[in-house]
């Protein structure tokens, strides 16, 4: 694990407000923190405290009302939407609570997708290899609806890691799974993360899971505490 002193994520004065019928609602405010390469950081907090909103903004999937986010020193929101997409493609992997696989694509095609988006020629081989790594070598041509929840999440993990991202975001990756399956998925996630040396940022409710990370950021009603 290469340690380096320049933070991979830097967040300054981040705020997110949304207009609602009853006036403006503040989802996040006054968020400052930075994360160094190779760290594994947990984001915890009560339901509705803004964890998913924060993760979405860090990944450039949503736009903050105030403040800045720097990924490896580059201002994320100085880029346009396509610029952010390009950054995600090259540097960021994602695992969601609801798996978010494309239902019309097979397991293999789902995993190939980020590579093909990046115009990689060895997409098929790479995807097959990592699916074998997560234990799904026999399920390449299966569609998501024929896979169990745990298997779907493994496909999602394979898809997140197949591009060898520097950053991996996971939003309650075990939230839809039973605890035994959840534990196995988490093991897998940490293992591959270690192998690839990525920086991990994970939203979780699970205190024991948070303890396995190098540190935790706790959100309370949109503020870091």
């Amino acid at each position, binding site marked *: 694990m290469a340690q380096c002193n320049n933070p991979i994520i830097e967040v300054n004065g981040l705020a997110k407000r949304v207009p609602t019928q009853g006036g403006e609602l503040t989802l996040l405010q006054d968020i400052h923190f930075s994360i160094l390469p190779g760290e594994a950081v947990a984001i915890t907090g009560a339901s509705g405290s803004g964890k998913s909103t924060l993760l979405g903004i860090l990944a450039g*999937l949503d736009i903050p009302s105030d403040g800045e986010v720097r990924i490896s020193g580059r201002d994320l929101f100085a880029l346009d939407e396509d610029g952010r*997409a390009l950054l995600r493609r090259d540097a960021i992997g*994602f695992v*969601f609570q609801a798996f978010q696989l494309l239902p019309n694509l097979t397991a293999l095609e789902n995993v190939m997708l980020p590579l*093909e*988006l*990046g115009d990689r020629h060895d997409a098929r081989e790479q995807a097959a290899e990592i699916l074998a790594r997560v234990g799904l070598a026999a399920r390449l041509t299966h569609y998501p609806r024929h896979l169990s929840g745990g298997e779907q999440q493994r496909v999602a993990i394979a898809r997140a890691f197949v591009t060898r991202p520097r950053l991996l975001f996971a939003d309650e990756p075990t939230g839809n799974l039973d605890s035994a399956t959840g534990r196995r998925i988490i093991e897998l996630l940490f293992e591959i993360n270690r192998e690839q040396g990525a920086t991990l940022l994970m939203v979780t409710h699970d205190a024991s899971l948070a303890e396995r990370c190098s540190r935790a950021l706790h959100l309370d009603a949109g503020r870091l505490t």
Partner: protein
Amino acid sequence: MKGLRFALRMLRRDWQAGELRLLCMALVVAVASVTAVSFFTDRINQALELQAGELLGGDLKVTATRPISAAVRQLAREAGLAQAEVVEFPSMVMSDDAARLASIKAVSPAYPLRGGIHITKRSPAPPHAAQDMPQAGEVWLEPRLLRHLGLEIGDEVTLGNARLHITAALVNEPARASGTLFTLAPRLLLSLADLPATGLVQPASRVTYSLLLSGPADRIRAFRRAAEEVLASGARITGPEGARPEIRSALERGGRFLGLAALVSVMLAGIAIAMAARRFAGRRLDDCAIMRCFGASQREIVTAYFLELLFLAIFASLLGCLAGYLAQLGLVGLLGSLVALELPAPSFFPVVAGMLTGLVTVLGFALPALLHIGRVPALRVLRRELGALPAYSLSIYGAGIIAFGLLVVWQTGDWAMSAYALSGVVGVLLSLAGIAAMLIYLLRVWQHRVPRSWRFGVMSLTHRAGGNSIQVAAFGVGMTVLLLLTMVRVDLLASWENTLPPDTPNRFLINIQGDQVEELHRRFQAAGIGGAGIFPMVRGRLVAINGAPVAPDSYRDERAQRLVAREFNLSWAAQLQVDNEITAGSWWDEGKGGDGLSVEEGLARTLGIHLGDRLDFEVAGSIFSGQVSSLRKVAWDSFRVNFFVIAAPGILDGYPANHISSLYIPPGKAEDFSAIVRDYPNVTVIDVAAIMDYVRVVMERIVLAVDYVFVFTLLSGLLVLFATIQATLDERIRENAIMRTLGAGRAQLVRALLVEFAAVGLLAGLVASGAATLLGMVLGARVFHLPYALDPVMILLGTLAGGVGVCIAGYLGTRRVLDRPPLQTLMERA
């Protein structure tokens, strides 16, 4: 009551949410297409019914090819009926420097017994009803005839041997609406008293005699019964129900065809409705599961949605009727001049028809999906996968096809024809969908070979094979009919004209008298107009074969019945015409014909005439007899004069004859030709080019009207396109959000969408132009008997048009997929 209010509230909410707009639009298009045709035919029907007496000119009409017999007149007199006499025939009408073919009508002063004739005595003055008929020495001409001849009211005109004074312009004549496209030759009306002086009615001329009658209904009925007994063969009686037969038969066939064409739109709209309803139901599954959780009964839920749908159907159908009424005006604009009737306002019947169509369509195509949601289990609240709708189930489309079948039966009133039409439409749809599915499957196999940047679009296409095949088929049907019509109009007409050799006769001369033949022949040769064969012609009716009498009812075949009922033309000749060919027996040698007859082989087959048979014809009241010594094959489409029966020279001498000729007049000789024929006022010239132009004009009008109705088909095809796009919209929004998190750029996503829709459109275009070409070839071979060549340009253009069209529609329909922040979408689903 509570249910009603609840349903209305739901309707308002769903309408505002935009959920039902597509369903509503599809219904409006379906109802509009049906009512447009229905309003139009209804108005013509009403016109025929209300004005039947005027259109006939009386209550009853006796028609014959010879003067009406004294027996019939006597019966009419005894019944105390009013009588008017009419004699009609075509002839040339001449001014000092022009000659025109006209339809001559000589009438007795009592004409017409019902209705009136509108004339103007001074050119710009408004027309008024004529008090009397033309007096002796007077004629009335249709304005178009005046124009052609360069004459005005007050001038004189030559008709046969007579010179007559023009005292009025004939503006409207209900019995044969003036200026209609159904009537090639314009009208000239004169007094019956002047007819002998014209010298145009000779024993062998083609003349129709009519006797119009009017009186109380019971006496008319009694007369009709009595007259039918004494009617000579070749004569017939027509009541008001038979007025304007050309419009009636056109209305019957054309109306039915347009009605079926409108039903194609209903079918496609039905598919769009089924898809929209399925999506609507799919999005209501959760609501329903929750309502069930809180104790709503299956019946309450179904009732609520049923009522909501019913309200929508009523509203949309009313809107459709309104649209149909407006569209009908377009049809009147296109076809009104063909019928030239005073069209009354439409009745209420088309509205009823439209409402019924709307309700049946909605019930058939939308209800199954909604019934399904009534059965959603409450447990779905916990387990979302329960009670999901089947994608393309038989129950959803089966009910629709049955409903559609009922509509077709209702429209045609004919089970066999309905079965044909229904299986035709469903068959074309299924085969288009099948071909599309096959092509998509091929693409799927090859998709990893397509250029990288196109791949996402192609994958998107192949992964939604089911929906996309239906899209291709539905849009393709709309395109097929339009392409087919374009082809029939442009190509078939052109290819027929191309099959005619350049020296094909372009003028017919009829009514040439025997003593003019030599002289005319000489003068034509002197003017360098060659090849003018002038043939004698005697009109006769076949009365016996080998001594056994023949009558129309001795044949089952309709054509045979017609041939026996009327007179046909006999001729005589020493030499066989060049384009005739003997197929049995032999042509007679010079001077050795005896009483031989040569019969056209088609006629022989139809009437059961064989070589060696003795045939008896009634010619001008006496019997003429001969023996069949040869059968001939004739090229009927050569535009040359040909005869069914040719006798050996000599045996027809002494029977009243008349001569006929066809010749080719090159453009440079037209003046010389006109100068010659002007010296023979009794000779009638028929200009083939004018007839062809006329046929073309009528055809184009009709094709345009059919096109017009099929625009609805294209519209409903487009609605199916939008419905399938909507059906996959939620899925696409989610997919796009995921793709964006994986790093796809906007350009990549737009390209994928465009590639997918372009592919759908190109497929639809390709399949449609292929189907249209195939149908065109079948039609060409079977119906028009013309070779129809494959037209690669049309296939290419059709394919491209489909590609561009669907691309634009697809992009417009899915654009907002691209504009949503991905996080929001993903969180909605989590």
